[in-house]
């Protein structure tokens, strides 16, 4: 996928000047807005053109210069907004922010000074329709198309069947057999409690278990319960 803004010059040769879409891959024309000026970054507004909104991207084609046009995928448009405040921008417009490849910061000023415009570094684009009553409609169409273009799904392994490496911590938990054995030991001598006065030898290990293992507290309660039932 091409990130950011790019030149677009593929116009149909039938004189209509319409852009050639990738129809075989399902790209559809969603909306055409004539008489739209475009401003890239901080640059001045460029002569009016026509905005084509497809299911994949925005295409702006100059009405004057047939060799001039820009395109940007909806996947690269970070946000879009309706801007009507004259203090922030002279004309009501659709404001867009464009995702660019990283490591651009330092070069940006250079591009400006040499006068060579590197489209892939343009982070902002304004679309100024001559009919500003169309702004809300355009905003909604932008939203709709953005939603048609979710992030490509990463090639993730299926949820199940991960061969996770188990830590020692986890081994303890999964090694339940040992734990069960503890329970066996702690529960089996419960009947002994009643006799413990006479048989210190058996009661003694239980006492140690109680000290070493908090889980035994529960077992002790159970022991008392079962003990009561026994009697």
């Amino acid at each position, binding site marked *: 996928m091409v990130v950011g803004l790019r030149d677009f010059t593929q116009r149909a040769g039938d004189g209509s000047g319409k852009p050639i879409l990738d129809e075989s891959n399902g790209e559809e024309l969603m909306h055409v807005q004539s008489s739209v000026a475009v401003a890239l970054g901080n640059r001045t507004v460029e002569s009016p053109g026509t905005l084509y909104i497809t299911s994949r991207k925005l295409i702006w084609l100059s009405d004057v210069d047939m060799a001039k046009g820009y395109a940007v995928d909806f996947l690269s448009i970070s*946000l879009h907004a*309706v801007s009507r405040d004259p203090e922030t921008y002279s004309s009501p417009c659709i404001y867009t922010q464009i995702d660019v490849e990283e490591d651009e910061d330092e070069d940006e000023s250079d591009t400006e000074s040499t006068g060579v415009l590197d489209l892939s570094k343009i982070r902002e684009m304004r679309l100024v329709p001559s009919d500003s009553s169309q702004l809300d409609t355009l905003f909604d169409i932008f939203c709709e198309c953005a*939603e048609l273009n979710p992030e490509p799904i990463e090639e993730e392994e299926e949820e199940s069947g991960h061969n996770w490496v188990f830590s020692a911590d986890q081994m303890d938990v999964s090694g339940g057999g040992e734990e069960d054995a503890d329970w066996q030991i702690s529960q089996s001598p419960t009947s002994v409690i009643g006799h413990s006065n006479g048989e210190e030898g058996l009661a003694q290990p239980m006492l140690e278990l109680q000290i070493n293992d908090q889980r035994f507290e529960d077992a002790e309660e159970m022991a008392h319960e079962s003990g009561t039932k026994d009697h």
Partner: protein
Amino acid sequence: MLFFSYFKDLVGQEVTVELKNDLAIRGTLHSVDQYLNIKLENTRVVDQDKYPHMLSVRNCFIRGSVVRYVQLPPDGVDVDLLHDAARREARGG
């Protein structure tokens, strides 16, 4: 789907969306979709020095994948509900 549902319930409340490009936009949550794309209304940019021209866009669509954080309103967070939802989600997934 947990967070899609969560944000749907949050519609109408004030949130601050922080983007991966460090832009922070505060506004009323208007809607959210399954990709966690976010629409805000009555927005204003928090760091106005950095993006002065974005001062007051009325409504704004933010692509889910460019979001880093969303600061949530304290009364928009029911932690018990969230814990239950997260456990359910974990079981289902």
